[in-house]
């Protein structure tokens, strides 16, 4: 699986840890943009912009 993807905001390279799972949030080291891992199959690593923190988030 490829472990590096391009940030959709600033174009920086984001490293995705080997053990990252679908649904996990990763952050761009350059611009701080947050992405959710949408799919992770073979070479098909896809990200989508993470949801913004909602008013009702938390425990």
């Amino acid at each position, binding site marked *: 699986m490829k472990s590096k993807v391009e940030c959709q905001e600033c174009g920086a390279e984001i490293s995705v840890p080997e053990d990252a*799972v679908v*649904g996990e*949030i990763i952050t761009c080291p350059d611009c701080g943009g947050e992405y959710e891992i949408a799919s992770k199959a073979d070479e098909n690593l896809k990200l989508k912009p993470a949801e913004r923190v909602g008013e*009702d*988030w*938390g*425990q």
Partner: protein
Amino acid sequence: MVEVSIICDKVRFEEKTLYEKTQSKGIKSKIVDAKTLTIGTYSKTKDFLLGDVILQRSVSYYRGLYLTACLEFLGFKVINRFEVGQICGNKLITSIKLAQNKIPSPKTQFAFSAESGLESIKKTGFPVVLKPIVGSWGRGICPLRDPETASMIVEMREEDDSPLSRIYYIQEMVDRPPRDIRCIVIGDQAVTAIYRYSSQSEWRTNVARGGNVELAPITKEMEDLALRAAKAVGGGILGVDMMEDKNRGLVVHEVNNTVEFRGAASVSKADIPNEMIDYAIKLARK
């Protein structure tokens, strides 16, 4: 063989750890994205491959709560139950449940207009704490130290769009050390407890606000209160928050429904995800 579904809208440390624990125990499990589920009044249980028991771990309170209602409608066993989520997600209802069950908790007043809210604040005396009845991670919790600030905050609440902002939850400021206690209860066991210290320049102790944690010994008093508080809200996997009142001893101020345990896991000797999974398996087999 029992199958566990971990439903969430974001895979955090907690959800990942729970999933890994099922894998290491040889239990069939999957992480399901809450955002992908659609359920109708005509839906059939068999159309949803969600196993025998579901751990509801959505970070969004309302998403988790109403999805749980739908899943229970389909006949799934969900931890925690809808009723528990509804109680714990609302500080006013939680306070009532604690009081009904004679569990020591901070003195709290509820008011339903700006005028009566300000009157209650004055009656309680400064400093006093104003809390939103629904909200997490310490958001919107205001320590009020003088009448002028109180008036301004109430005015702001009146102008807020949410009707819940016009319900005033006014609590005495408990004379406590700069920490509170989080006790994690799983079923009928107090599994671990931590002290949560507020960070510098912050009065709230929430880990989400940068608070530090330290392992707390589970005393008899703490265990008793935590188990009673958990039972009062309906039981399950819960985080019971307490303060050490200098005069009265421990008082329970909150019970958390989708308990976060990253902070606790960093200092606790207990295997928190293991206990959670064992509890889920036990429930599935009932």
